[in-house]
């Protein structure tokens, strides 16, 4: 009997521990790679660091310098708007694409693969492509505008328009993965719910609002985490597309961080900017997790 109880207890313990043991390698990797980077960055942020990483402890001086820098404040505001518009456009498009891909029956696999193509194109190639599209001289967009009798625009020469182009390019790049996330959520919905709703006379909008959206809520949260993280971190598309111009109109925090770290070689202040981005991304992720109740049950 004691042996039987002991055996059952050991199995229960093993069953309880197994998920954590399986998580351990991934966790060690994350802690080892990312954690080391974050901790090193945090340490660097408290030091004045020269080009050869020789350090002098300066406490919060780097933080004061960064937060009082007008250029940083402007880039932060710009980033907030950039992320806001990217999320709005990205979520709308990815939801539309996911709903469409969920319903199509012909060439389903091919179209799903095709929808992922933008994600596989490098950021630099994406930027070159978009730069060509919106070139005022030979760009396709201006040619179309001219063809319908509208004047061409200085897309990359106007601060507002260049910002719009960056948002569009960013959305084009981040939507595919978000679409994949939402599509996976849509595919878990029991079709009988839709059938029952139609029998009860519910139209498309009501079905979407009262059945689809609630059931993919956790996936919406994951998608938002991806969209906001990718947008906050977006660097390669913007640097190649506009270089942060014209006139710093597209200089987001990630670009400014690159300037500070790799142009001015001020690794201390660059580390502060890294931590700012990390804090914002972490905070937003926690908000999304709480709002969309990912991984838990509704209260």
């Amino acid at each position, binding site marked *: 009997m004691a042996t039987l109880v002991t055996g059952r207890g050991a199995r229960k313990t093993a069953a309880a521990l197994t998920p954590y043991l399986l998580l351990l390698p991934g966790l060690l990797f994350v802690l080892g790679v990312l954690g080391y980077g974050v901790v090193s960055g945090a340490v660097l942020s408290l030091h004045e660091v020269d*080009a*050869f*990483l020789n350090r002098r402890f300066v406490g919060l001086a780097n933080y004061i310098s960064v937060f009082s820098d007008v250029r940083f404040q402007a880039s932060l505001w710009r980033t907030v708007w950039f992320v806001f518009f990217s999320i709005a456009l990205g979520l709308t498009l990815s939801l539309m694409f996911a709903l469409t891909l969920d319903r199509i029956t012909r060439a389903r696999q091919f179209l799903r693969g095709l929808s992922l193509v933008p994600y596989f194109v490098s950021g630099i190639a994406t930027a070159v492509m978009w730069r060509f599209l919106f*070139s*005022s*001289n030979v760009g396709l967009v201006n040619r179309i505008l001219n063809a319908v009798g509208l004047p061409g625009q*200085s*897309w*990359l*020469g*106007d*601060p507002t328009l*260049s910002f719009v182009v960056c948002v569009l390019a960013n959305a084009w790049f981040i939507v595919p993965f978000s679409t994949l996330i939402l599509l996976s959520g849509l595919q878990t919905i029991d079709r009988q719910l839709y059938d029952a709703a139609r029998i009860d006379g519910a139209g498309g909008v009501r079905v979407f609002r009262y059945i689809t959206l609630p059931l993919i809520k956790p996936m919406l949260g994951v998608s938002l985490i991806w969209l906001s993280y990718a947008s906050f971190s977006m660097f390669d598309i913007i*640097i190649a597309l*506009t*270089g*942060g*111009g*014209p*006139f*710093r109109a597209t200089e987001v925090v990630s670009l400014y961080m690159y*300037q500070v770290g*790799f*142009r*001015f*070689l*001020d690794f201390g202040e660059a580390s502060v900017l890294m931590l700012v981005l990390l804090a914002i991304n972490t905070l937003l992720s926690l908000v999304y997790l709480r709002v969309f109740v990912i991984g838990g049950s509704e209260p």
Partner: protein
Amino acid sequence: MDASIRKRMANAVLATIAVVVLGSVLAQTTELRVWFGRENFIPADQFATFHAEHPDIRVNFEVIRLEDVPTQLILAQRAGQAPDIVQIASHTVPQMASSGLLQSIGELVERWQAEMPDSYAALAPITWSAASYDGEVYGASLFNQSMYLFYRSDWLAEAGIMETPRTLDEVLSAARAMSTLPAGGDRIGFSVIGTANVPPVWELPLFMSLGGQFVDGVPQLDSEAGYAFIDFYQTLMREGLAHPDSLAWDPGEMRAAVIGGRAGMMIEGEHIYVPIHEQIPYGTGAWSFTLLPHREGAESEARYIALGFPFLMTAASENGDAVLKVLEYLSRPDILMNVALTYQPTSNLRVAEDPRYLAAKPWALDILPLFEQVVQFPAHPSNQLEIMDVLVELRQEMLANPTADPVDMARRYQVLLDEAASR
């Protein structure tokens, strides 16, 4: 002892000897890493002849863009992967030298002069001056040029202007005349760069030619030269003499406007004359070049910048002998010729006088007297990159705000430049 055993033992001894010999040969091979700033600078034979001449030296090279070298070199140095030789733009030599990233090669140059006098004598003095800082030579600047005013002489003639524009006012008048010429498609008088992606190496030479002064490498914008400099760019935009999208233009778009026959003038180096020559042959009266304009009455204050692309020895290198051999190899006329024929001009006098070079670049002799007037780029010893960053912002504001007061703009940016220099 059995014959087969003796045979196996003999084979084993021979194999051991071979391994030892091979190992000792490999152990004596010096690995040298070279960073080229552009693919165009790589020798056509990719060091094949060098390897044949020096089997004990293996050169591994890659392209790291000139603009990225300062950052990449620091990171490589931290990782213990720094190259032996880097190629950079000459205006970053002071900052890299004072940061301890470079190594003086004064003794190596003396050896070069003593051991290879013919090779040394073929190199113009700018080879060493463009790679020097504070009296120390850090490498060899085998490719050097300046910025000139390119202009469509046929367009000027069409507009009734027979004199070469030499002052700022004359350049603006020429641009106005070119912009109003009747032609199929829109023409602009002056093609400029506006993007934030490239350093201000097109603007600074103009500032200097207008008499602009530098104090410890900091441009003195708050001066008559500075006001004229800013007003020039503003006038181009205000009067429609430059393309309205100039704010987004990179060097490629600036050049394309000229090569494509849409722009009449630009500030550019002579390496671009090669593709222009392919479209519009030089010497037919269609285009020409001259020194950058000076301010009216301030011709004596004008100076012209030399822009070099030196090969420098890094502080991490311990292969002085091999570096010397590679630099000498890169300086050979046949090696330089392949680059100079289609790209940057060289400081090797034998190349500059070679009939093949003169045939490929028929403007070469005409440009020589202009190039003899150049001076070194007055760079800041520690914060040149920060200063360039401010100037890029100025470039954009000049084009974006063509009606702003140039004096006010000059004073604001002077403050920013002084702050950048003092960080």
